């Protein structure tokens, strides 16, 4: 179980889904908060769902309000980076760049991509946490190679 978990985590890192920040979160986990990481990730998905919705609505407007989009995305990026969602963060950066240049098409495309990454990560993490719970509280933060 533990090994399985470690492998999963390793793969997530290798594939670039997660970054160092995730490790930081794991380091915060302790006996007092054994499911801290899962708790935070859940919080993230819940809160960011709202941001995603805002972005969807804003992207439907015509013409696009790049300022607003950028502002939403800035928030989203901040959230995502704090849990270590690397790929999602990359899409956020790309999106903001398109906002800066006023590229509506680019924004919309990137947003679709972002949603994909976001959903993929969510699924992967769900599985990960499931295994983690099964593996028991022994799971300690260990840096991926």
């Amino acid at each position, binding site marked *: 179980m533990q090994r399985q978990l470690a492998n999963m985590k390793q793969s997530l890192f290798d594939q670039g889904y997660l970054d160092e920040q995730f490790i930081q*979160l794991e380091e*915060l986990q302790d006996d007092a908060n054994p499911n801290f990481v899962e708790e*935070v990730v859940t*919080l*993230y998905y819940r809160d960011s769902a709202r941001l995603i919705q805002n972005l969807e609505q804003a992207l439907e407007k015509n013409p696009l309000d790049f300022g607003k989009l950028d502002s939403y995305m800035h928030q989203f990026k*901040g959230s995502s980076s*704090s*849990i270590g969602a690397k790929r999602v963060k990359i899409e956020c950066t790309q999106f903001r760049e398109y906002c800066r240049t006023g590229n509506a098409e680019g924004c919309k495309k990137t947003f679709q991509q972002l949603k994909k990454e976001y959903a993929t990560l969510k699924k992967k993490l769900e599985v990960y946490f499931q295994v983690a719970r099964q593996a028991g509280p022994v799971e300690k933060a260990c840096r991926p190679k």
Partner: protein
Amino acid sequence: MNLGVNPMSFTSSSASWKSGDGVSDQFPAGLRVLVVDDDPTCLRILEKMLRSCLYEVTKCSRAEVALKLLRDNKDGFDIVISDVHMPDMDGFKLLEHVGLEMDLPVIMMSADDSKNVVMKGVTHGACDYLIKPVRMEALKNIWQHVVRKKKHEWKEKDFEQSGSVEEGERQQKPSEDVDYSSSANEGNWKSSKKRKDEEDEAEERDDSSTLKKPRVVWSVELHQQFVTAVNQLGIDKAVPKKILELMNVPGLTRENVASHLQKYRLYLRRLSGQHQNGLGNSFMGPSDPTFGPMTALNGLDLQALASSGQLPPQSLATIQAAALGRATNKSAISVPLVDQRNIFSFESPKIRFVDGQQQHNNSTKQVNLLHGIPTNMDSKQLAALHQSAQPFSNMNRHVHSQSGQSNSLLTQMVQPQSRTQILNEVGGSHVLNLPSSVGQPVLSQAIPSAVLGRNGIDNVHGPTYASVSQPSTVVDFSRSQRAELPGNSFSLVGNSGIPTLTSKGMLQEEFNSEIKGNRGFVPNYDVFNELNHNRTEDWGLQSVGSNFEAPQHSNLQGRLDVAPSVLVQPGFSSDRHIGIPSVNKAPFSAADRVVNTTNLSQPLTSSLPDNPLRIKAERLPDMGFQNSLFPDQFVQDDLMSALLKQQQEGIVQAEADFGFDGYHLDNLPV
């Protein structure tokens, strides 16, 4: 979890500390941190990280709530960590407010790492800037900012205080320091503090409680007495001991006077500095971060006035307040004048000044920020007022770009409330009306007290307003109010004044924010309020206001008296800002000068009516907004209403001037 900071390791260092400041052995464990971030994910993570560092964490997702927490628990926190982008209030505004009101170290954080944002943090006085995602290592060492600040305060205190008060200072320092860190480890620190205090105890011991000296509320009257004493002795010769003797106030310690004097001096300096700036001198800000703005302001009117004795203490206070207020405002407003900006920065220091303890810190903080400063003032005052009306000024001021921290929040918050309040209150005393025509001088004077509180900026306005020629606008404001002011303001000021003031203060703040957002709130409110810390600021502002206008406006004289009515000021400040955009400084300064402190609250009422009217006639054109401002006497209520009106009327002009209003104050010649 690996806690980088090892509490134990501090034992040795803290031991040495103890002697110096009575810090507990466990420092930095127990450090009381307030975290503000609208992102729940980040907030949760930060909270966990800070807990891991053994800090005491309080988290909050809204800046307004954070400010309220800070205000309700003065000395309840050691450091604040805030996000830059927040929906309800700009992080920088909050930063400003905290700096002004509480003088706590503030760390900004953001996912945004662009240079200009980081620079903004620096200029607004943030003691650090963290890039998100925040790592544990970065949080482990935040305690250094707490220590640094305290040390700084001490040093400043020492520096500022004259030799005679050294003793007192020393005592103060430990107390301050203790206060600062005491919360962290209450048991330990307090005991060590107590022990230490007892050892150091000097004759002042009884007067100043060692651990936590009860804050002396520098009421308008008290401040006036203080200013009178200072003027009698001569600004250079005024030493706390003599001032204390002259004032002859039972229960007042030399320490209290010393710290107040320190603030006052900074305030004056600021005014002179601002004044210069406003006059078109080079921007003071950068050169003298801490004093930049202050000097300008101080130098300008207040000092001149003060020294000449013409400027009534009150006016000085108002001016100061105004200046302070202005500072805030300024930032908010696009400050056309660079100088003005300084004022803002000055103002902020001013605010701090008022506070007494924080003074140094504030000024430092503020100064750099141009924007930030005003907010401070506001925040402080706001704090006072906050109760009733949420810092209105914060909003305005901050808007500008300053610290946004509190201001934005405050203003936002305040606005709705203050508006109402102000309206209610102001209704009676429309201070605003007064100013009107009187032109700037009048405004400045009258407002100084009132406005000062608020705006510090108001005073500043004087000079800047000239450009704006808003008179009409101002007048409007005051129009409605004028009639009522005279009577009202005083009542407010008087006893009920305080309560009103509070609200007023808040209102004003709101107004300020509303007005232009820049104005920043006139801290003066505090003065009236006696409630809080703001008080000190208020008077600073107030005087500022008054000084500002003074020199030229003889008419204002009546007004200046008003200044004492500091109470009124709060209301004024707001007005000021709005209307005064183009108010000429000169007028104000004159007005300010004229105002004799004698009036202070009571005389105010009487003086107000006279002055405003007088001023109006003469000054209208000059003052524009300012006019409305000066009715310090009008008492906040009027101001508030005036402000409200102004706002409603779309004081565009004010806005324009706004920018400099804050600054103008600084220009107040002292």
